[in-house]
């Protein structure tokens, strides 16, 4: 049984990492907290659901569509974020909280409050080894998340763009002085982040019911993982995702499913209490 719990925890954790990467990237490069992150993920899920249900698109084809829709939404949001004044972090929180309310109600209007799930029968079958079981759904989640995380890691480490992004994360002013277009890096971070959400959204719709206010929990997850990892540490994001996924799986086993929702909140509060100056407290 333990192996099953651990496998499901790791697969969930990898998916959480995929969800949080966009948030971490946007925060790292632009210092904007995007509290509408979860709402965007649910929006991507709804786009996929709508195409799959009403237009009978094959499930895999909904990914590029959701990515395009999210890219456009992300770019619109970025235009507004870039107009915010200091204190940037606090103003971005207030603004994006408003955006989250707006998107939530927009989704309520377009898709009603009913619970919806993208049912792909193939994902519910599974493989059984001697004493452990993995469903194709979990396997897809694990495989796709790790693939995308790996790709993003390569981009960040090996390409010029990645280096420029990392330089902006580490020190905006120095990066600008070295000739990096910091404003363009912000746009790129938002685009990359939005595309990542677009990729994760349809998967989310497969493993979790879609309803307009579902995004709140996701936002909390993304914040927790980002703060746990610290700015600009991709490996840290993966580790944090796994720890959160495993803690949630164990919480479900030991305490019951209804306590799961508290795990990320408690983790975030503990982190903030231990590192009161937040992520930036790492800096000397």
């Amino acid at each position, binding site marked *: 049984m333990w192996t099953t719990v651990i496998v499901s925890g790791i697969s969930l954790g990898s998916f959480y990492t995929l969800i949080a990467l966009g948030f971490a990237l946007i925060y790292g490069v632009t210092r904007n907290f995007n509290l509408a992150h979860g709402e965007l993920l649910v929006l991507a899920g709804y786009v996929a659901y709508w195409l799959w249900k009403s237009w009978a698109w094959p499930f895999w084809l909904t990914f590029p569509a959701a990515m395009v829709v999210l890219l456009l939404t992300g770019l619109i949001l970025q235009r507004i974020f870039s*107009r915010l004044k200091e204190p940037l972090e606090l103003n971005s929180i207030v603004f994006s909280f408003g955006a989250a309310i707006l998107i939530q109600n*927009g989704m309520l209007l377009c898709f009603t409050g009913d619970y919806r799930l993208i049912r792909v029968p193939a994902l519910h079958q599974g493989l059984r080894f001697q004493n452990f079981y993995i469903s194709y759904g979990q396997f897809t989640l694990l495989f796709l998340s790790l693939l995308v995380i790996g790709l993003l890691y390569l981009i960040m480490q090996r390409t010029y763009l990645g280096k420029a992004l990392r330089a902006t994360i580490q020190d905006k002013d120095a990066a600008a002085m070295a000739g990096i277009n910091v404003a363009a890096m912000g746009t790129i971070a938002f685009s990359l982040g939005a595309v990542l959400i677009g990729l994760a959204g349809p998967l989310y719709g497969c493993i979790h019911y879609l309803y307009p206010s579902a995004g709140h929990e996701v936002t909390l997850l993304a914040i927790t993982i980002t703060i746990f990892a610290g700015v600009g540490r991709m490996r840290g994001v993966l580790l944090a995702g796994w720890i959160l996924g495993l803690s949630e799986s164990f919480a479900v086993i030991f305490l019951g499913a209804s306590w799961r929702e508290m795990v990320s*909140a408690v983790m975030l509060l503990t982190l903030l209490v231990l590192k009161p100056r937040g992520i930036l407290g790492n800096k000397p």
Partner: protein
Amino acid sequence: MIKSIKSRIKKLTFADSGLVLVFLALLLLPVLVGYNDYILQVLTHALLLATLALSWNILGQSGSVSLGHAAFFGAGAYGSALLSLESGLSPWSSIFLAGLIAIGLGLVMGLACLRLRGAYFALASLAFVEIPRVITDNWDGLTRGSLGLAGIPGLPSLHLGSWYLKIGSSITASYYLVFVYALGLLGLVGFLFRSNFGLALQAVREEETAAGSVGVRVDVFRMLSLLLSAFFTGISGACYAHLVSYIGCGLVYGIHFSALPMVLAICGGRFTILGPALAALILYPLDQFIFHPLLPAGHEFLYGLVLILTVLFLPAGLWGTIRKNA
């Protein structure tokens, strides 16, 4: 005496006379709307939201933005409802005790989160709501979990000799009760903000280190403002529970009651006394009378939109801007 009143009246601005009109309209509202139950109910709720926004702003005055005031609202609502249902306390005492419960929760939140500043306090408060919510939701034996609490007793009648007021059953009476509460809270907030306490909070907000160096005990004042804010939010939550007689976990701990106080206070003007209350009196009726009939699902987009517009174009808030230009 009369001269000073006259000179004061001369100094009254356009905005001031507007305020007098608003006050008179609210005072005479039941007569003006012909005791229309629906309108009175909406305005009662608007006044209750005004008390929430005013309470939020006590903490807001110290510069903290809380996204988690539903924690106090929910604790107040559940606390008072359970006390009056289980132990048969009169709602008046259970409402007061609910305020104390909210203070207890505020103390926990303060000890955990008040070391954080700005954005990080906001994030922590967002996470903090989950804890009382999940506990209330799972403590089936006491709180009946996701079923919610039904049949919460209404407010009892007030007796003064042979004259009595049926607050529990008359909508007009509950309207006036909340009106008096909102007015009292407004007076208290006005007094607090103009006292040394308010000046200290303002100093903490503007320049914390400087405030500390001239002897303002920063931590104490931030904690006090949080506790006061929690207390009145809890009281409002308790009033809400007795007014509507049914509460559920998802609602009273929900995003609605976390978001609205913040939205209203910021739109009205975070650093003003009246702004938050005015925003509640404008936005909630606008939402209920105009947008709700138009868009039964999704009418609350209004709050998101207004918040975004305020952050972008009116950082001082509505009343803050009017005051500055007056």
